[in-house]
């Protein structure tokens, strides 16, 4: 009998090796990566905990506790939803990578990261989860490096800021163990709370530690950046919730709600301001991610079940904004050129209309505009915030307007006619017509999904409701 948990640790890693070996055949490597993620996503959703299934003559039992190197791997209901989110998001990112960036290392590196991130969600105590997350972040740099560009400084900044968060998160475990033995020593709790706040501020890119986010999207592979800011960031969020559940003293701290709100609002304000002034569409994606993270923290700062549901809903719909926007921009970027200024994107929408559409729909979703996936979470947040925190609601709305100004400026450049005849003949070699139709179908499906969720949010809200009901740190 095989423990099902091992599937999520070993299979992605094994497939990553295979995908790397066959990466020159884009279709084969993409289909291998996508099918693995979809299969594992379906298994984690469909197979109930404790149920034994037969797979190729072997019995696999899902759930329970598994001991690995003397450490416990535990699959809880909340982890099932989180892992399903990771794998389905990764499958979508890999499908779009097939279209927008088929030669990148995102596929093998993404699969290896998924293996480490699944381990981070399952392993206990949390110090091992933190170490696995750091490993995944370090590995993801291979995927972030763009094929035809200088080394990614944004990627290095991302790794540096994440590494600075490591000592705090590892030391908290020791401090809280001491606090459990000597509860009268409140300095231990106080120091742990400071370390927790600082560490997650670094990991989530809260102001003033936000500089790595626009840098990351500015000079890295955009789809890989989208992967990092949804999948890796998703695990950071689940890890934060695990910390709050493991040490309920943090959640019950008098300053918790105000701290989360303040951090969130600072991200929203800074992101909105710089997004409005941004003339580099790639960095605009980063500021959009900053706003979205800030909005989720504002929702968490409501310190209620409703706020938690909204924070998680924002997290679940984030790929429809970031991954789609990143994929669209990746496709629009001229090959080999700098591609990071508005001028270089002038008129590109006429060459790559699907890229322009993906960029637009992704951007609208990130700004929380109606008829896109992001609207469901954002509208519900406005309604929840307005009665008691009208100022916060207005600031979130202003940030969305700021992001929309940036998107409008970029989209105007995309739609304008090219300045000269340069580049008329570029990109003559593209995928074969049959494959182009298939890939265009993938983008159309992604865009359509975003619009469907925007129109019928009840498709996705039960997931966040279910997820929030499993998180128990709130009073």
């Amino acid at each position, binding site marked *: 009998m095989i423990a099902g948990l091992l599937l999520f640790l070993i299979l992605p890693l094994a497939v990553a090796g295979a995908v790397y070996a066959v990466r020159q055949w884009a279709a084969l490597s993409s289909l291998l990566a996508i099918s693995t993620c979809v299969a594992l996503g379906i298994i984690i959703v469909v197979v109930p905990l404790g149920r034994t299934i037969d797979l190729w003559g072997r019995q696999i039992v899902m759930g329970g506790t598994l001991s690995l190197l003397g450490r416990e791997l535990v699959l809880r209901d909340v982890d099932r939803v989180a892992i399903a989110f990771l794998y389905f998001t990764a499958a979508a990112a890999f499908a779009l990578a097939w279209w927008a960036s088929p030669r990148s290392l995102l596929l093998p590196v993404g699969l290896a990261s998924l293996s480490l991130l699944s381990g981070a969600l399952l392993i206990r105590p949390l110090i091992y989860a933190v170490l696995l997350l750091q490993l995944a972040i370090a590995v993801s740099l291979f995927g972030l490096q763009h094929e035809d560009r200088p080394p990614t400084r944004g990627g290095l900044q991302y790794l540096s800021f994440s590494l*600075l968060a490591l000592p705090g998160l590892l*030391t908290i475990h020791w401090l809280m163990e001491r606090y459990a033995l000597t509860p009268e020593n409140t300095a231990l709790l106080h120091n742990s709370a400071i370390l927790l706040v600082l560490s997650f501020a670094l990991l989530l890119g809260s102001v003033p530690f936000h500089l790595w986010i626009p840098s990351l999207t500015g000079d890295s592979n955009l789809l890989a950046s989208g992967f990092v800011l949804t999948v890796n960031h998703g695990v950071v969020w689940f890890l934060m919730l695990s910390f709050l559940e493991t040490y309920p003293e943090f959640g019950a701290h008098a300053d918790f709600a105000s701290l989360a709100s303040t951090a969130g609002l600072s991200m929203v304000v800074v992101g909105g301001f710089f997004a409005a002034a941004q003339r580099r569409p790639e960095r605009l994606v980063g500021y959009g991610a900053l706003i979205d993270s800030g909005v989720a923290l504002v929702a968490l700062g409501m310190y209620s079940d409703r706020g938690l549901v909204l924070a998680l809903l924002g997290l679940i719909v984030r790929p429809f904004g970031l991954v789609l926007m990143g994929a669209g921009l990746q496709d629009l970027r001229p090959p080999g050129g700098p591609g990071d200024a508005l001028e270089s994107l002038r008129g590109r929408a006429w060459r790559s209309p699907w890229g322009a559409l993906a960029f637009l729909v992704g951007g609208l979703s990130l700004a929380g505009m109606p008829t896109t996936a992001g609207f469901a979470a954002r509208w519900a947040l406005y309604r929840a915030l307005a009665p008691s925190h009208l100022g916060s609601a207005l600031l979130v709305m202003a940030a969305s307007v700021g992001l929309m100004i940036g998107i409008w400026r970029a989209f105007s450049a995309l739609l304008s006619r090219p300045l000269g005849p340069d580049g008329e003949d570029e990109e003559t070699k593209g995928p074969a017509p049959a494959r182009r139709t298939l890939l265009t179908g993938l983008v159309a499906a992604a865009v359509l999904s975003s619009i469907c969720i925007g129109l019928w949010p009840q498709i996705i809200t039960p997931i966040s409701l279910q997820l929030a009901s499993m998180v128990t740190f709130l009073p």
Partner: protein
Amino acid sequence: MAILRALLEQLSTLAATPAVVGILVAAPLLVVSRDWRLNLLSLAAKYTFVALLMTQVMPLEMVALKGLIGWLICLIFYLTEQQSKSLTRAAGETEGLSLQTWSAARIEGWRRQGVSSQGLFGLMAALMVAVVAYAAASSLPLPETPAEISLVSYLLAGLGILLLGLSQDPLRVGIGMLMFLAGFDLFYVALEHSLVVTGFLGALSFVIALVTAYLKTVQAASIDTGRGG
């Protein structure tokens, strides 16, 4: 293994003041110097002295493992620099690779130009970090660790952050990250003796070295493509 153990036991007599002095010399040199050969020697020396200091708080076998990881990282960086130098030479940049040529060029450079302003700035910044580390170790000593380990932990972490802030070259950023991690590791081994944690921290150092080496090669290759063709 028995020979290694005996060797480490002999060397652990240097675990206190000599190791601290060694780190106080080697670590700031990594901030000040721009010469990759000197930096690699300093990095190897730093890992050796850190391993010696660790003998105070953890078993010798685990110290040996950490030392080996450090030296392997130095080897990765050495091979990467060789690779990137050969790529940039192919692109038209010339630099002698023999030790004699290198040392003669260094001495001639120092004789003619003295220390560069960049080096002086690095030296001043490293001195300031050392003063802050001393003050922090005196007023906020790290729990469960001897005083000299507290001082070295603060110093390595501070210099690591300084290097992260000052550098754009992938390998120097990598050295900064590894220095920060080494400083924290030195403190954390006193709190957590788990072999799995040691393994994870070692793996993390190794992946950081690999990824920064990869980015350095990409940088050299982009110079090669840009100039050479």
